[in-house]
Each structure stands twice: as C-alpha cells, then as structure tokens.
C-alpha cells in the first residue's frame, strides 16, 4: 500500500504546517500567547479530547462505516453514574475503576447494537448519544454532582515539569500502547485489514465482529477515562461535560489522517491533531473570541479536512 503511506505522510505534513501556522498567527497577533505556560494550558485541556479521539480513531479505522457519535454522552454519563455510585455508598477508592467500567459498558451497548443487531453505526450511536447524554441531564436535573474525593484532585490539576499528571499517566501511555498494538500485533493488523476490505478480512478468518465489538468497548472505556479526568479536574461530575465531543473527536481523528472509509492512518497524527485543535481553541480564547465560535470553527475544520482529503489522490478511487 505504498500510495496510502504517501497520502498519510502528506496529511501529516499538512497537519504540522497548519499547526505551525496557527501558533505563529496567534504569536504574531499577541506575542504574550507564546509564554511557557501555554504548553501546560494546552495539555491540561487536551487530555479529555485526546482520550476520546483515540477511541473514535480506532472505530473509524476498523471500517464498516464505523463512527461513534455517543462518545460525549458516554463521558457525561460515566461521570454522573460513577459519582452517583459514590453517593450511594461505593468506596471512594473505586471511583477510577467505576468510571472506566461504566464507560466500557456503555461502549459495549454500542458494540451490541452495531455487531449483533446490525444497526448502522451512525444511527445506533446517534441514538445512544441522546440516551446517554439525556440520562446524564435527567438524572441530575442539569446540576453538578459534588463530592469527588480530595486525593483525586491533584491528579486533575497537578503538573510534573509543566506537564499535567493525567497527560503523562493516561494520554501518553494510551497513545503509545495503541501505536504499538496497531503496528506490531496481529490485532492491529486485523483492524487495518478489516477497515481496508472487510469481506477479504472475513474470508481469511479475521473475527471482524468480535474485533469491532471490542473497539466500541475500548472507545467507551477511553471515554470513561476522560470522564475520570474531568472529575479530578473540576472536582465534580458535570452532566454536560461531554458536549460537542463527537464533533471534536471526529475532527481530530480525520485531521490526524484517519481515512473516513477506514483501514488507513495512525494514532500519532490524531494526537497531533488534538493538540492543534486545543491550541486553536486556547488561542481564540486568548484573543477574546467568544467560545460560541469554537464549535463552528471546529466544524469548518472537519469539513475542510474532508474536502482536502478529496483533493489528495485516494487509493480506492
């Protein structure tokens, strides 16, 4: 697949150029933007999106029109349900496990809808987005749930050498593990194979449904981790914390070079794209552009990258 490699590399170069242009533009407009704390700020805000976008990337990569629109709903609902479990008397130590397990469970529901009942991913996860997000709002009547254990808060706000704990402890290992698994293990090759051509993958004995189910569970678990980061960071469970994450994670995955048709792309690009999107949002905030512009700008970015994708020669014309 030499041509797909070229196009992936080309996308990465375009991404890096775009990233540099964004940093340079804000730096020229407002030199104070380029202070050292910028890195800490961006990484602090990047962790949640990075975790969610990784799950999204794996699902899109696995093909079969794979998409997970429910990621934001999972983040909100895992945060709310794990806090409710604590208030109902679960030991506080279990909070991290609870958040991730609930996320994985909600992802498993998506996996069953897609691989067993065979509902199109876009409509199945659109349904669960509203069910999960709606439940998070309905169960709390829109209010926050306080009572995150104090020992967790430093994890959400602390820095090591300017880098947030959660970025070091969760995001970097997750991306490293994903990159290693995708490149060097059979599971990774299967994921690419089924994304590239599902029928052939099935014919050579790859258990397509099982891997896809696992991908949805993993995306759920990663969203649960993002929920944990939000709990540690804000000290409370917010029912709308996952808002717009479906848009931002898709934009990050596709900007990062994952082909929307599946089967091509890597996760390092996704991490760079996440950092770029967060830098852009931070910069806009820095120059006092109202936050309501962010969703539109990310939306436009998503459309632009896909139109660009159309201009770069594709291997399956």
């Amino acid at each position, binding site marked *: 697949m030499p041509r797909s490699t070229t196009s992936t590399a080309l996308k990465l170069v375009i991404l890096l150029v775009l990233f540099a242009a964004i940093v340079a533009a804000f730096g020229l407009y407002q030199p104070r933007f380029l202070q050292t704390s910028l890195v800490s700020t961006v990484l602090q805000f990047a962790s949640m999106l990075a975790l969610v976008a990784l799950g999204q990337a794996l699902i899109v990569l696995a093909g079969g029109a794979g*998409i997970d629109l429910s990621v934001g709903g999972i983040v909100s609902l895992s945060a709310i349900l794990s806090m409710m479990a604590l208030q109902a008397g679960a030991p506080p130590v279990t909070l991290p496990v609870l958040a991730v397990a609930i996320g994985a469970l909600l992802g498993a529901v998506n996996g069953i*809808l897609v691989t067993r009942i065979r509902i199109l991913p876009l409509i199945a996860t659109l*349904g669960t987005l509203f069910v999960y997000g*709606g439940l998070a709002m*309905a169960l709390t*009547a829109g209010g926050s749930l306080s009572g995150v254990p104090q020992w967790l808060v430093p994890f959400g706000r602390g820095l090591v050498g300017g880098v947030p704990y959660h970025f070091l402890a969760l995001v970097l290992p997750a991306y490293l593990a994903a990159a290693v698994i995708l490149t060097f293990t059979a599971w990774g090759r299967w994921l690419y194979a089924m994304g590239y051509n599902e029928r052939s993958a099935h014919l050579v004995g790859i258990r397509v449904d099982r891997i896809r189910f696992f991908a949805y569970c993993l995306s759920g678990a990663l969203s649960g981790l993002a929920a944990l980061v939000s709990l540690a960071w804000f000290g409370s469970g917010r029912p709308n914390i996952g808002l717009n994450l479906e848009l931002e994670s898709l934009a990050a995955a596709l900007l990062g070079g994952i082909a929307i048709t599946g089967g091509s792309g890597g996760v390092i690009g996704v991490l760079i794209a996440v950092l770029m999107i967060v830098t852009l949002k931070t910069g806009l905030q820095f120059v006092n552009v109202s936050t309501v*512009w962010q969703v539109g700008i990310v*939306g436009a970015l998503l*459309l632009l990258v896909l139109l660009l994708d159309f201009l770069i020669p594709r291997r399956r014309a």
Partner: protein
Amino acid sequence: MGARIAGSIGGRELTLLVAGLVAMAIFAVLSPVYLSAGNLYQVVRNSVELLVVGLGLTFVLAIGGIDVSVGMVLGIAAIAIGNLLLAGADPWVAALAGPLVGAALGAFTGAVIVFGRIPAIVATIGLLGVYRTAIFALLGGSWLSGLPSSLSDIFAARIGGFLPASYIVILAAYLAAFVVLRRTPFGLHLLAVGNAEERARLAGVAVRRVRLAAYVVSGTLCGLAATFYIANYRNVEMTVGSTVALDAIAAVVLGGTSILGGRASLLGTALGVLLIRVLQNGFTIVGLPSLWQPVVTGVLLLAALSLERLAASGGVRRLAFGAP
C-alpha cells in the same frame, strides 16, 4: 409501482396508529386532564414543525442520506423570518423567506455532501457546528422576541376552534410529496438511488442531481417549518432546533422509511411524528420532567430499529449467539 402504493398503507402504519391510540388510552387513565381539548391542542400544535421537517427528512433518508443539521437550518430560517417581521415586512413575504433561506442552506448542505464526496453524517455534524455558531452570531447573545403577530394571525389561527391553519399547508405538502414520490420520474429516481446507487447510475439516472435535490427539498421544508415555528411561538431562543434532528430522524425511521435508503413512507412519517409527540406530551403530563424527552425518543428509535432488524434476520437467536 402499484404494489408499492398499496404497500404504502401497510402493517407499519397500522402498528403506529394502534401504538399511538394505546398510549393515549393509558395516559387518559393516568391523568384526567390528558384528553382535554387544551392538551390535545398542545400535541397538535407541537407536532407542526416536526411534521414538516420529518417530511423533508423522508426524502433525505430515501436516498440513503442523513442530515443532523436540520434543526439548525430551521433556526437560521426562523431568525431571517423574525428579522423581516421586526423590520415590518409583509407577513407573506416573511412566510416565503423561510423556505427560500431553507432551500439555500439545503443546497449548500447537499453540495458539500455530493460534490465534496463526504459521508452525509460527517458533513452534517460539521455543518451542525457551523450553523450553530451562525445562530449564536446572528442572535448576538440575546433572544429574538416581541415579534409582531402577523404570521400567527395567518398560520396559528384555529380552524373550527381547534386545528391550526398551518395544517392546510402541511396536508398540501404531504399530498404534493406523495405525488412527487409515487407519480413522477423524480420520485422513482429518488428511490432507485437509495436502493442501489450504482445500478441507478448505470440506468442513466443523474444520481448527483437527484441526491442534491433531496437535500434542497429537505432544506426548503425546514424553512417552511421555521415559518410555522415563528407563527406558533413568536420568538427565537438560543437553543432553537437543538432536539429537532433526533425527533425527526426517530419519527421518519419509526414510520418505516429505511435508514439505508430505497424505501419511504410519508404516512408513516406523519404517524411517527404524532406518536413521538403523543408520548412526549403524555410522559410530561404524568409527571416525567421534560429533560427525559431525548432519552425516551432515543430509546424509541433504537428499540424500533432493533425490533425491525431482529424480525428481519434470525430473531433473538442472533443476539444470543452472534451472527451466523
């Protein structure tokens, strides 16, 4: 063709009708005020916009497309209408401006999807973000309120003291859509594209033009819905249209239009809309906070799709033992 028309009033429509009546009977038992004229009028009034948006979305789903930005198109068109009314425009001019703005946005959405060759779901998620920002920017952080009642006098007037006048337009739109879908080459092409795009292309159907047209139809109807929205509520708030897409998609899918394209039921869409509004209203009447509405609609959508899939292939065995 004959079989298809006969099949258009089939089991699905009957099921929806029965489900709706059963639900109404249960709510009537649970709440003494449920069957009051005032409450039934609420259901009828709240269904207006969704009936129109759902009709347009039926065309989009029929070609195998989807549009999650419909609520935002409604919102932008509503802002245009509201501003025209505030500027003292003739109500009929304002009423026509809605569909015009909707058609333009629908054409843009369709062009991005068809000519940009972007999967409809991804494109409309991106556009949803862009349109939402546009709504914030156009409203400038405040509601559009205190609109003159000139549109309301036309479309919200009650026929026989009950049915809003907009239902005359809605009925006409459904009849026109029925004729277009079942009696014109365009309708045939639409379903052919949804059924098997490549075969339709080989048979000489102008696939791209047909797909684009479906989005223009949908956008136009979103704009018409905006006209009725202004007539009904006489204000535009920041969160305008945020639940329209889910409700409309659920209604169309419940109505039996295939999410994969190639199959459309207009009567089903109308009944799906009414069922959703009956349930949302009923649950609210019996004391469920309105925050639960998206949960109810989402579960309804997934349950309907699951039952459909399970009935079509292998039943519950698939759930237990996996695909054969």
